Every structure is written in C-alpha cells, then in structure tokens.
C-alpha cells in the first residue's frame, strides 16, 4: 500500500509545493481528502435492529478511530444476521468486530478474534460495563416469591437466544432445578418492552429482561415500577437490581488478520475516548474500558448448550477419529496380522484333512472284517441264548405254578428228609415267611385225624405212607399250626422211584378242604333244621316234589289226616288220598304252574254231616335254578275258633244295644244341663253389667274427690293463710274480739282441711290407688317426730306426755305410720282433761311384729261403742261435738292404713270413764309380711 502512495506522489510531483501549502492551511480538509485514499479498515458490526440503526449508533465511533489513527480509514460493515458475520470473518473481510458478548464468544472460538476493550455502557445515565438480567412478576402475585415458585407458571422472555432477556434467567432457573422449556410455559414477546407489558397485563406470570429496562420504562412514565416485584434479587454494588449473575458488556475485538500494531493503536484510542466524545454520545455509551473476562459467557453458553457449545458433551465421529487415530491404526494392524495367520491356518488344516481321509479308509476296511467275524459269533451266541431262555422260561413257569398253586406240594428223599415244598405248604403248616430247615417243621404244628381230636402218628402221615410205597388217595387229616387256623387237608401222594424202581423219595399234594367241609356241614345242618321245623309245626304241612310225591310232612299233618310217615314219604299224594276232590287237584296244578292259592276260612262237610272249617294255602317251592321244585300245602282246622268268633259277635251286638240305651239317657240329662248353663250365663252377663256400672261409679267418685280436693284447697289456702296473717298481726293489731273471731275462722279452715285430707286418703285407700312408700327408718326418730308434733297441744292442756322411745330399724311406710301415731296421740290429748298420755312401743317375742300403744287417762269408751269406733263418720260424743271437734274419719282411716298399707291391725281397750289404750300392731319389715301373705 505504501508503494501505491509513492506512485501517487511521483505522478503528481509538480503539485508537491502546493500540497505542502495546502497541508499548512487546510490540514483538516486535507486529512479528510487524504482519508479517501487511506487504507480501509473494516469494522464488522452486529446490527440487531438493522443496518441503519447500527450506522447511527456506531458511525461516530468509526470516525473517532479514523481521526485518532489518521493512517487508516475505519469503515463499518453492518451485519444483521450472525451467519453473515461468521461468513465475513471466514472470508477475512473484517479487521475488527463489534458485537454482543455471546456472539463474541462464538467467534473467539471459531475465528480466533481477540477482545481489545469492553464497552462501558450508559444505562439511564449510569456508566456500567456489566449487565445482568431481572426476573420479575406482578407485585400482587402472592403465590410467586422465590425462583421455585416459577415452576408451572408461564415465563416470558424476548426470544430463545436473547442473552439478557432469556439465557441469563434460564441459567439461574436451571441451577435451581427448573428447566423453563420443561417445567414452565415459555413465551417470547420479541422485545424487552413487550416482555414488561406482557407481565404487567397478566399475559404471562413471570418475565425476564436485562437490567435497567424496567427503570428506563418507569423513567419514561410508561409503567409504574411499583407494579412489579423482583424475584431472587442479588445484593451487590451494581446500581440496578438484578436476579442473575452479571456478565460483561459488548467487546471490541480484533481479528487474526489484523496487525498487533494497529490493534494496539485502536485499543489505546478506545480506552482514551473522552466521555463527551461524539462517538460516545451517538453510541449512547460512556466509553471503553479494559477488556473484561468473558469466561462467564463461555460458562453460561456451555451450560445452556447454545452456540458455540450446542454440541458440547456430544461425541462426533470426527472428534473420535482425531482423538483416537493411534488406537484405530493399531487395531487395523492387528486385524491384518490376524487375517494372514488365519489364511495360513486354513491351508495347514486342508492338508491335515487329506491325511485323515486316507486313514479313515484303512480303518473302515479293518472294521468290516471285524464286523463279519463278530456277526458269526453273535449268531452262535443268540442260538445258545434262546435255548437257555426257553429252559429258563419253562423253569420259571413251573416255579410260578409251584409257588402260586393253592395245593400244598411236599417231597422228601429216601430217608424221609424234606427236599421240596411250595408256599402253600408252608402256609398250611403255619410256617413263617423266612425259610426254616425241614427238621424244625414239627415245632410249628400238630397233625390230627379227620375228627380233629386224635393225634396222627408220624407213620400215618401221608408222606410217610407214600414213602413206604403206598399210594395215598384222598387221605383226610387235620393240621393245627401252633399260631394259626386249623385246616382240613385232603392228601394224595406216592413214592418217587428211580429207573430201577428203587424208591428215592416221596411226594404228596395237599388240598385244603376246610371251607368246603364247613359249607357242607352248614348245608346238612340247615337241611336238618328245616326238617325239624316242618315236623314240629303246629299246622299241617306237606311238602311234595314235582311229581306230587311226599318229601316232608309235619306231625300235625300225620295227626290230622291219620296217616303214618313211613307210609307216605316218597308216595304220590293221590295214591295216599285217592278220593281227593277235583278242586284240590286243580289247586295243586296251579301251584305247580307257580300260582299261590289259599283261603282264610273254608267250610267243608264231613261224611257224618258235621261242618269243619279250614284255613289253607298251597304254594310252589323253587329249585336253586328258579324252576318249580314242588309244592307246599298248609292246612289248619279252625272250626273251634270260628265257633268262638260267632259267640263273641252275638255278645257284642247285645252290648251295643245296651250302650245305645244308656247314651239316650245321658243325652237327655245333658240337654237339661245345657239349659241350666244358658240361664246361668244370662245371670253372669247381668252381673258383669252391674259390676261395670259399679266400676264407673267408683271412677266417678275418685274423679270427684280428686277435683274437689283441688278446688277446696285453693280457697282454703286463702282462708287459712290470711286468717293466720291477721291473727299474727302482720297487718296491724287486732282487738280481742276480732282476734277471737279470726281464730275461729282459722280453726274452721284447718278442720275443713283435715276433713278433706282424710276423705282423700280414704278414697285412695278404697280405690286401691294409695301406694305404700316403703323406706328404712328408725323407730326412735319416728317417735321423736310424733312427739314434736303433739307436744304443744299437750302442754296447752296441761297434760303430761310420756313417750318411751327406743331404737329399732323399721321397714314400712313411715308417713302412714306417723299419721296413725299422731292420730292416736291427738285423740289421747283431745279426750283427756287431766293426767297423762303415754306412748309405749314393744317388739314381739319373735322380733317380727312391732306393737305401739297410746294410753290416756281420758274419758274412755263404753264397751258397746268400741266395736263401731273404727267405722267411718262415727262420733261417739254427739252431745259434746263442740268440745271435741273431729272429722269422724280419723280412726276409720287409721284402721284402713294399718290393715291395707302397713299389713297390720289396730285395736282398742278402754274402760269408760278411766281411759283408753289404742294400739297398732305392724310387721317390722313389710316385705316379710307381704311374703307371708302370699
């Protein structure tokens, strides 16, 4: 380039002076003119918002450099897409690069660009060389406080690659285990402002923008910063609130083609740029600082796997090839060596195979010879084997017969020593399972003659008889083992002789006839029994065979038909009774044809004219094969019984007549009784009706009394109450006469009240509605209470009151007993003018009854009056009624209470003019009294 300049100067030498002058006066203009011809330095600029905007922002910076480093002319190359920027660097079109931090990192990795300075930005008039990201939500979102609350929410950023408005926040979230594309609903608004508005307007729950944006919008008055709250705010000295780590601002970088010298100059120029320079103003920044550390950017991009680290951690073939070239080469070499060795081995193998085939042929020949020889030998062996097997089969067959046959077989030698015997034999002899020497056999059994009692001599034993040369035929004997069942055996045997006829031993077979013998005996017995039964049957029985010959007859038959047994057995029926009527012959034929005939009472006329009655039956009997074997004829003369029945019948008829007569009599009596009963029923109905009326009346009476009592008491309350108040001068003093009159009212009221009370009590007792109130109490307490009640009135009359108290538990109606005692005491006081009233209690000898008496020294009661004293409305002292007021009901009530409530009684002893003794006797425990009553 310097060559170019010199050529330029040579060509225009004549203007040299002029140029010098021009330089002197028009230096600035010259510089400008010169710059047109200076070497062009290209600054590639990232133009997010288009080329125009980029020029507007950065042209002044380029001009500043041109001016500061006059040798060069700095020009901008705005590149809108990142691909274009890469291409420009690949084609070495740029000397310097001005781009955002993430792009810088990418280019640093791929094209080796190096940062010279870092932009000191002016954010809302504050100088910062770093920036971060804010994660924010609406202030009123109560459910979002920490980063973890963002899970499941909608989350808005500018776009997927926006560094300050997505990636920074994403890194922080992922560090907290939240992957926005997985755990949130990601939204992209396109611009920083749109993100803020989306969150404000509720279109997204959470948003992220770079630091300072919210403050900028708030300064412009477009939002109210109080509407937002910042999540995960980091506390540090950075002037703006932020939620993420901070990252360096845009770097100014050189490319690899740029000389160090130029780079140094540019760096110095940038670092020395004053804050008020037009470049800073146009670029809206503060200036340039020393280059920051961009490893942070590398880290975040690596973590988030975005360019240039989109393939970070993935293994590509190229990488593998490059990295493992040595290993791969070694393996290929080994494979080749292996292949050569394999070929060699195959060759050797083939020659080995050929030798093997020759060897095989030789061996096959040899084998063939051996085989033919072996076959011949085998045939011989087979023949011999067959013969042996046939023999063995025969032997086995014989042995099997020998062992399984139920016949006992035993053989001995010439000396009589047992040589052969089979299993049946050992079983017959009661020998154990294991073999026993023959000489020991005799210990296990005894031999007897067929009668089972006479012992059999050794010489008589069939085997010995056979050994002597005798041919034993059906010799019966009994064998009784020591431990087992006796058997009857049938023995056959003979001597065994050699060719010369000499006896060499003997053999005997034994057949067990125990069972058949037993059956035979049973059969014989049954037969005998049947004959016995028939013979001794009380009916006349004749048994004939198929030919009507007599087989058996009963003794009755012989007697009834006047024949002898020996004359008829075996003879034909009709030969014995040649005059037998045709009727019977027909019956016999029917029976032979299998039909049963008979009659319960069959009359027939005898020769002498008398009538005999018979009961008979004729039935076939059968052979074991089911064919008719003959007939059985039963006949019974029943003339006597028939006569008896006839008499009985007549007697019964007479009896029935008599019964009928008597029945008629009874029926007459019964109807008379029924009439009487009807009459009685009528009377009962009338009685029931009367009873019902009485009940109704009684109920009415009770109702009347109950309601009367209430209606009377209410006014009485006023009478008694007010007169009492007046007498006691609550309402002012009374004179004597007034007082006396009031006392008269009060006394009358009280009298009326006691009358009502008595009437009520009596009506209740009579109606049975007064229920006893049974309780446990002490006699002494009760007497004290009675004493308290009466003491005043006794004192008023100047009488001495003596109560003999003692303690005694009582179980009865306390209130009612007290009522009686007070009544007695009141009466005593009332009818006694001087002397004393004494109460005495006494327990009966058996401790079960309590007797309480009240004695007075009063007027007494005449004997004739005493009986009606306990009746209602009895007033003995009519003439002196004013002197002795009373209801006339008191003693009657006492009696009622004593009898019906206390289960006791009252009585009186009195001498007229001397005094009276009223007494109540009651059970100490009412339960016991009730029990004894029931």
């Amino acid at each position, binding site marked *: 380039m310097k060559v170019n300049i010199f050529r330029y100067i040579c060509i225009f030498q004549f203007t040299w002076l002029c140029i010098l002058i021009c330089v002197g006066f028009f230096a600035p203009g010259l510089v400008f003119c010169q710059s047109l011809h200076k070497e062009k330095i290209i600054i590639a600029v990232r133009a997010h918002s288009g080329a125009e905007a980029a020029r507007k922002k950065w042209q002044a910076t380029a001009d500043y450099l041109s001016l500061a480093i006059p040798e060069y002319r700095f020009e901008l190359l705005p590149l809108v897409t990142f691909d274009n920027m890469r291409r420009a660097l690949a084609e070495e079109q740029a000397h310097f690069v001005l781009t955002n931090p993430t792009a810088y990192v990418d280019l640093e990795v791929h094209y080796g660009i190096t940062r010279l300075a870092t932009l000191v930005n002016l954010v809302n008039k504050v100088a910062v060389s770093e920036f971060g990201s804010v994660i924010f939500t609406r202030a009123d979102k109560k459910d979002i406080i920490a980063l973890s609350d963002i899970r499941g929410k909608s989350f808005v950023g500018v776009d997927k690659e926006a560094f300050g408005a997505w990636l920074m926040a994403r890194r922080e979230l992922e560090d907290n285990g939240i992957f926005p594309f997985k755990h949130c609903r990601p939204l992209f608004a396109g611009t920083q402002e749109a993100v803020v508005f989306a969150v404000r307007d509720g279109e997204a729950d959470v948003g992220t923008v770079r630091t300072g944006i919210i403050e900028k919008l708030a300064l412009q008055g477009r939002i109210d910063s109080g509407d937002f709250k910042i999540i995960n705010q980091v506390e540090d000295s950075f002037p703006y609130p932020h939620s993420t780590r901070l990252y360096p601002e845009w770097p100014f970088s050189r490319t690899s083609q740029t000389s160090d010298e130029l780079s140094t100059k540019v760096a110095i120029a940038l670092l020395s740029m004053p804050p008020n320079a037009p470049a800073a103003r146009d670029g809206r920044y503060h200036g340039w600082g020393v280059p920051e550390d961009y490893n942070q950017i590398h880290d975040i991009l690596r973590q988030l796997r975005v360019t240039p680290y989109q393939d970070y951690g993935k293994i590509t073939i190229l990488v593998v090839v490059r990295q493992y070239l040595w290993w791969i080469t070694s393996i290929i070499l080994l494979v080749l060596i292996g292949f050569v060795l394999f070929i060699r081995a195959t060759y050797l193998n083939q020659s080995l195979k050929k030798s093997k085939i020759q060897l095989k042929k030789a061996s096959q020949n040899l084998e063939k010879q051996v085989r033919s020889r072996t076959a011949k030998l085998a045939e011989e062996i087979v023949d011999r084997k067959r013969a042996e097997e046939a023999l063995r089969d025969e032997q086995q067959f014989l042995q099997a017969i020998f062992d399984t046959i139920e016949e006992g077989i035993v053989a001995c030698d010439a000396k009589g020593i047992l040589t052969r015997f089979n299993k049946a034999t050992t079983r017959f002899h009661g020998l154990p399972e294991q073999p026993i020497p023959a000489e020991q056999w005799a210990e296990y059994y005894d031999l007897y003659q067929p009668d089972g009692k006479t012992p059999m001599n050794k010489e008589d034993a069939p085997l010995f008889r056979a050994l002597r040369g005798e041919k034993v035929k059906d010799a019966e004997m009994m064998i009784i083992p020591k431990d087992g069942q006796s058997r009857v055996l049938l023995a056959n045997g003979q001597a065994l002789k050699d060719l010369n006829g000499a006896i060499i031993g003997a053999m005997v077979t034994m057949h067990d006839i125990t069972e058949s013998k037993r059956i035979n005996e049973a059969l014989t017995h049954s037969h005998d029994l049947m004959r016995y039964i028939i013979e001794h049957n009380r009916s006349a029985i004749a048994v004939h065979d198929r030919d009507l010959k007599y087989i058996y007859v009963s003794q009755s038959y012989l007697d009834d038909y006047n024949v002898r047994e020996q004359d008829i057995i075996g003879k034909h029926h009709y030969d014995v009774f040649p005059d037998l009527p045709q009727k019977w012959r027909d019956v016999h034929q029917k029976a032979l044809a299998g039909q049963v005939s008979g009659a319960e009472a069959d009359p027939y006329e005898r020769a002498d004219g008398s009538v005999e009655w018979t009961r008979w039956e004729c039935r076939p009997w059968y052979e074991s094969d089911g064919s008719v074997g003959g007939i059985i004829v039963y006949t019974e003369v029943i003339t006597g019984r028939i006569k008896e029945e006839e008499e009985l019948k007549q007697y019964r008829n007479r009896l029935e007549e008599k019964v009928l007569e008597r029945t008629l009599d009874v029926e007459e009596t019964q109807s008379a009784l029924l009439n009487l009963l009807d009459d009685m029923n009528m009377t009962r109905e009338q009685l029931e009706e009367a009873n019902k009326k009485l009940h109704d009346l009684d109920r009415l009476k009770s109702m009347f009394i109950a309601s009367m009592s209430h209606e009377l008491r209410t*006014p009485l309350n006023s009478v008694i109450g007010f007169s009492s*108040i007046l007498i006691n001068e609550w309402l002012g003093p009374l004179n004597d006469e007034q007082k006396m009159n009031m006392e008269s009212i009060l006394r009358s009221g009280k009298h009326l009240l006691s009358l009502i009370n008595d009437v009520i009590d009596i009506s209740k007792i009579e109606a049975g509605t007064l229920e006893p109130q049974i309780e446990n109490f002490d006699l002494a307490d009760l007497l004290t209470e009675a004493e308290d009640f009466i003491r005043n009135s006794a004192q008023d009359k100047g009488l001495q009151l003596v109560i003999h108290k003692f303690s005694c538990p009582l179980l009865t109606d306390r209130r009612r007993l007290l009522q009686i005692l007070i009544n007695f005491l009141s009466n005593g006081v009332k009818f006694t003018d001087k002397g004393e009233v004494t109460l005495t209690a006494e327990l009966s000898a058996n401790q079960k009854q309590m007797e309480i008496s009240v004695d007075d020294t009063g007027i007494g009661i005449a004997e004739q009056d005493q009986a009606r004293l306990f009746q209602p409305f009895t007033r003995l002292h009519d003439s002196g009624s004013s002197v002795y007021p009373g209801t006339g009901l008191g003693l009657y009530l006492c009696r009622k209470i004593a009898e019906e409530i206390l289960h006791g009684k009252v009585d009186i002893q009195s001498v007229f003019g001397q005094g009276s003794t009223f007494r109540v006797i009651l059970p100490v425990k009412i339960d016991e009294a009730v029990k004894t009553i029931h």
Partner: protein
Amino acid sequence: MKKVLVIEDNADNLRLISYVLKRAGYDVISAGSGEEGVVVAIRELPFFILVDIQLPGISGIEAARQIRASGANGSIPIIAITSYAQKGDREKVMEAGCNGYFEKPFDPLTIMDEIHKILEKQ
C-alpha cells in the same frame, strides 16, 4: 332487695304469698300464667322462682322446664307449689328442673322456713 318471681293465677294466693315474701325482705314480681312466667324469668333473672303447678295454659311443670331449657337461668332455684299432689307429681316436678316443692294450703308462719331449707340445699 332480692327479686322473687311468683307464677300464680289465683290473685288471692298471689297476694298471700306476696305478704310472706315481702315480710321476709324480698321484692315480689309476678306472672299470671306459665307463658308469662317464662318470659319474665328469662328477662328479670330473679333470685328464686315460686311456680304454681295448676295454671291455665301451660302447667307450672312445663314452665319450669322451659325456664331451665332457656339456659340462661341454670342456677336460679325454682320451687313448685301444688294444691293436690297427684301420684308421681313430685318426680315430674323434680324432673322438670325444680329444686323443691310444697303443698297448698301452706302456713304463712312457717312457709319461709321451708323455702329457706330448699334454698340452702342448693
């Protein structure tokens, strides 16, 4: 002065019991029916209540039950007055929440002692 509520329809009896109560130093308020008695009892919260069993409308027993059921007067003693004790009356009275009862006609000279005995049992 302590207030006593007397629920009684008979004017004479009311007057009589009032004499007794006033003499004993109580201020008497009254109600002529059971229904009225319930209302007054709940409103006035008297020191104690005397209630006649035989009343027009709801009975004294029912009145006592309602007073108890109102809940506000749990501790106020209620004493019933009856002119004729039917069988089982006492049980009914105590079941309805009364603290005691006495029978008419009563003796004005001794009735206060009886009432005080019942109150003391409280």
